[in-house]
C-alpha cells in the first residue's frame, strides 16, 4: 500500500526544517505545502486545531504535530529505512531527548530575543544566546556530532538554527564564530550533508522575512 505523506510547513521555520531533513534522511516522498501564517489554511486549522501551528505531518490522512514528536514518529514508522534518527540504547535516547528539549527551551527564545529586543537590552540578549551555545559546545566536546560519530537526533534538532545565524548576527550586530568556533565548525560539518544543506532555508530569505516581521511588529 502506498503511503500518502503531506507536510504543512513554512520555509523559514526551524521546526519545519527538522521534519524536512528527517524525511529526506529516510528517503520518504511527500507533498510539501507552504502555509501563509497570516492566512492559515483550512487544512492546517483542521489538522492542528489545538495549536494551529506548523509543522504538521499528515500521514495517510492522520495528523502528527510538534516537530520532535514528528521526527520520532518518522523514525518509528519507517524503522526499516536507514539511517536510524534516534539511538537504540534507552540511555542514549534519553540523553538525546534531554538535549533536544534544551534546544527547544533555550535556542528559539534566545534567538528571537536578539531580533526583537530593545537597543538597550541587545548586548544582554546576545550574551545570553552565546552562553547557551557554549553549553551546547560543552556537550558536543570533541565528538564530530552531538550523537557521536554520525549525524543524529540532537544534530537534526539543532542545525536548522544555523540558517538563522546570519539574521541574528545582522540584527544583534555581533559575530558568533569568534565566540563559539567549535559550534560553527560542527554546523559546517553538518552542512556537508546533502540532506541538511538542501533542506535548510536560504539565510538571505530568512533575513528578509525577519525584516518584514519586525516592521509588522513595529520594531524599528
Amino acid at each position: 500500500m502506498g503511503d500518502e505523506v503531506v507536510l504543512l510547513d513554512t520555509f523559514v521555520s526551524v521546526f519545519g526544517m527538522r521534519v524536512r531533513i528527517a524525511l529526506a534522511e529516510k528517503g520518504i516522498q511527500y507533498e510539501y505545502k507552504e502555509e501563509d501564517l497570516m492566512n492559515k489554511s483550512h487544512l492546517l486549522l483542521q489538522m492542528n486545531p489545538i495549536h494551529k501551528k506548523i509543522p504538521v505531518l499528515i500521514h495517510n490522512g492522520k495528523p502528527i504535530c510538534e516537530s520532535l514528536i514528528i521526527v520520532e514518529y518518522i523514525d518509528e514508522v519507517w524503522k526499516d529505512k536507514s539511517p536510524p534518527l534516534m539511538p537504540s540504547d534507552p540511555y542514549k535516547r534519553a540523553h538525546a531527548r534531554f538535549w533536544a528539549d534544551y534546544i527547544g527551551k533555550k535556542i528559539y527564545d534566545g534567538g528571537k530575543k536578539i531580533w526583537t529586543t530593545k537597543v538597550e537590552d541587545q548586548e544582554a540578549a546576545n550574551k545570553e544566546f552565546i552562553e547557551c551555545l557554549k553549553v551546547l559546545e560543552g556537550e558536543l566536546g570533541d565528538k564530530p556530532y552531538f550523537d557521536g560519530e554520525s549525524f543524529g537526533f540532537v544534530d537534526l534538532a539543532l542545525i536548522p538554527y544555523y540558517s538563522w545565524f546570519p539574521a541574528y548576527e545582522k540584527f544583534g550586530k555581533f559575530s558568533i564564530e569568534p565566540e563559539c568556533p567549535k559550534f560553527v565548525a560542527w554546523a559546517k560539518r553538518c552542512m556537508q550533508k546533502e540532506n541538511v544543506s538542501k533542506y535548510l532555508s536560504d539565510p538571505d530569505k530568512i533575513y528578509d522575512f525577519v525584516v518584514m516581521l519586525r516592521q509588522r511588529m513595529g520594531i524599528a
Partner: protein
Amino acid sequence: MAENDVKLLGSWPSTFVMRPRIALNVKSVCYDFLEEQLSSKSDLLLKSNPVYKKIPVLIHDGKSICESLNIVQYIDEKWTNSGPSILPLDPYDRAIARFWACYIDDKWFPIFRSLAVAQGEDAIKAALEPVFDGLVLLEDAFKNCGKGKKFFGGDKIGYVDIALGCFLGWMRVTEKMNNVTLLDEAKIPVVSVGCGV
C-alpha cells in the same frame, strides 16, 4: 539492605517527581528515594543535573536522566519486559500520547500554576477559565485516546495519565484554597472519573 542501582532524587510534594515514581511502580522497579532539600541542593543533584539543577533526576547504574517525562520514557524503554508498557505500542498512538503530555507541560501547567497562586476573587476567576478550558480539551483527548476505557492509556495507566495524574493532589488543594471546582463530574465526566472523583 543492599543498595539499589536505581535512585530517584526528588522531593515528596513535587508533582513532577511523582511522574517517575508512578512509572517505577508500574514497572515494579525497586529504587532508593533520596529526598532533596531544595533550599540546600545536594552535591549529587548538582552533579547529576548540572544544566538545570532541578529534581527529579533518575540515577541508574551511575548515569543520570533528567526531566520528568524524559525519565518516564526511559523507564518504559529500559524495563520494557517488566510490567505493562507505559506508552502505546502503535507509532501514531505514541505520537498522540506525546503530544498531549507536551500540551499538559507547555500549555496547561503554566496556566494552572497561575490559578494556584492567584489571590483575590477577581484574579482567581480570571485564572480559572483557561484552566478549565484546558481540562475540557483533555476531556476530548481522553475520549479519543482511552477509546471509552478507564484511562488515557485504555485499561491501564499510560503516559498521559501519568503526565496529568501527578497534578491531582495539587488540583484538590487549589479547589479547597481558592474555593473553585476543577474536577466537575458534570462538565468533564471522563477526566473527573479517571482522576477518581
